[in-house]
């Protein structure tokens, strides 16, 4: 019997759903083993019943539940709880679900400040009232799924990689364990590191020095070349079976999309430590909290303390 799969999306762009499609050929094998029972992006399964006859939101029972996106409204919260009730295994898909992702950058401001900025103060916006009719209320901040309900498996990444989603789902269906890497991106990065910066901090568009076509192990570490790279404080795994991290393969510094290596880690402190250690000036970072928690703001970013 095919395993039933339910998917729900919250505060997210939809990129992680595209990643599922992106699994490619292995997806055909995978689809034979699962039966999708609920997936708003794909199918018209209404939460209150097809004619809206039910009083409460309902998601069908499923063996596997996927949630992408962080929790930003009361509706998301209720749906996450409903998913938890109905799904045997709950998977947080993508960095938004695992750590809040980009939407969690809003955690740097209170909800009221954010609404005022967006609906009143933004120069390109006509001053309007805040929307309030027929929409669920916003939560006080963006939450990761694991902050609201128990999550059995986390697949970080922005978007997460097709290889990882495919691998994790296959492992789950075959009853094999699936674990994330506990190494940092730097551990899997092949570039040359000498623990000394060769330049002051540069803007990304200045472009690193490398020989096109030459193997990556002949390129100097991008951070040591002066480009902010989140590698030291980011979980590895984006490279998949190839190993080399995705961004590095494209001669770009790590964005940090896999989030911190442990739940207790504070990427900002780690990164400020890493870059000052090799001799870059920590004062030059314009917005350290947001820069180093770009994908992991849920539970980590909060409005600055008022003095």
């Amino acid at each position, binding site marked *: 019997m095919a395993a039933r799969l339910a998917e729900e999306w919250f505060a997210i762009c939809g990129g992680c759903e595209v990643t599922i499609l992106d699994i490619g050929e292995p997806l055909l094998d995978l689809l034979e083993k699962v039966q999708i029972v609920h997936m708003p992006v794909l199918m018209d399964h209404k939460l209150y019943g097809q004619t809206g006859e039910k009083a409460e939101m309902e998601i069908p029972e499923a063996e596997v539940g996927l949630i992408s996106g962080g929790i930003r409204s009361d509706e998301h919260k209720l749906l996450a709880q409903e998913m938890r009730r109905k799904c045997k295994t709950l998977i947080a898909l993508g960095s938004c679900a695992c750590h809040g992702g980009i939407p969690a950058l809003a955690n740097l401001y209170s909800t009221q400040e954010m609404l005022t900025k967006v609906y009143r103060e933004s120069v390109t916006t006509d001053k309007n009232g805040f929307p309030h009719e027929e929409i669920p209320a916003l939560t006080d901040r963006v939450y990761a799924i694991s902050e609201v309900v128990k999550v059995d498996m986390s697949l970080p990444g922005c978007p997460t990689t097709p290889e990882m989603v495919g691998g994790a789902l296959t492992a789950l269906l075959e009853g094999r364990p699936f674990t994330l890497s506990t190494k940092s991106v730097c551990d899997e990065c092949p570039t040359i590191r000498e623990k000394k910066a060769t330049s002051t901090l540069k803007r990304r568009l200045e472009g690193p020095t490398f020989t096109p076509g030459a193997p990556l192990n002949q390129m100097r570490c991008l951070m040591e070349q002066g480009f902010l790279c989140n590698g030291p404080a980011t979980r590895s795994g984006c490279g998949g079976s190839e190993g080399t991290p995705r961004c590095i393969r494209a001669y770009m510094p790590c964005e940090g999309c896999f989030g911190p290596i442990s739940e207790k880690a504070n990427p900002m402190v780690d990164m400020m430590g890493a870059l000052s250690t090799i001799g870059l000036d920590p004062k030059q970072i314009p917005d*350290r909290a947001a820069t180093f928690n770009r994908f992991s703001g849920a539970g980590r970013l909060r409005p600055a303390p008022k003095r």
Partner: protein
Amino acid sequence: MSMDLAVEQEFEPVILALACNWCSYAGADLAGISRCQYPANVRIIRVMCSGMVHPNLVIEALTKGADGVVMCGCHPGDCHYQEGNLKAERRAEAITLMLGDFGIEEERFKLAWVSASEGPQFAKLMTEFTEQIKRLGPSPYKS
């Protein structure tokens, strides 16, 4: 604060000193054998080099119970590992920047150079730092 507290106890801060094995810890030792007096609020942790003190250690101390942290290393040029203390200096700059993000006063953290022969100076540094922290009051992370 309420006035009915019969006996107002003086605030005794918890101060963490991270002293490098080669200079500052020896300096603290010298302060001890020379019978230099300094407040008992200071808890010294010996580290091999001030350059091994990750900002995480300082931030964690200040957010989990310490009222002040002093990081002590060899004078520039004297480092047993050539330039560990210079690394510590760069990290101290990053730590000072981040204290504000955590809502901690900058004065709660200090980097100081103490050589093995500077026992009295070590005692003076600790006395002054303890007084500074007493004036600041308990860490905002202590409720």
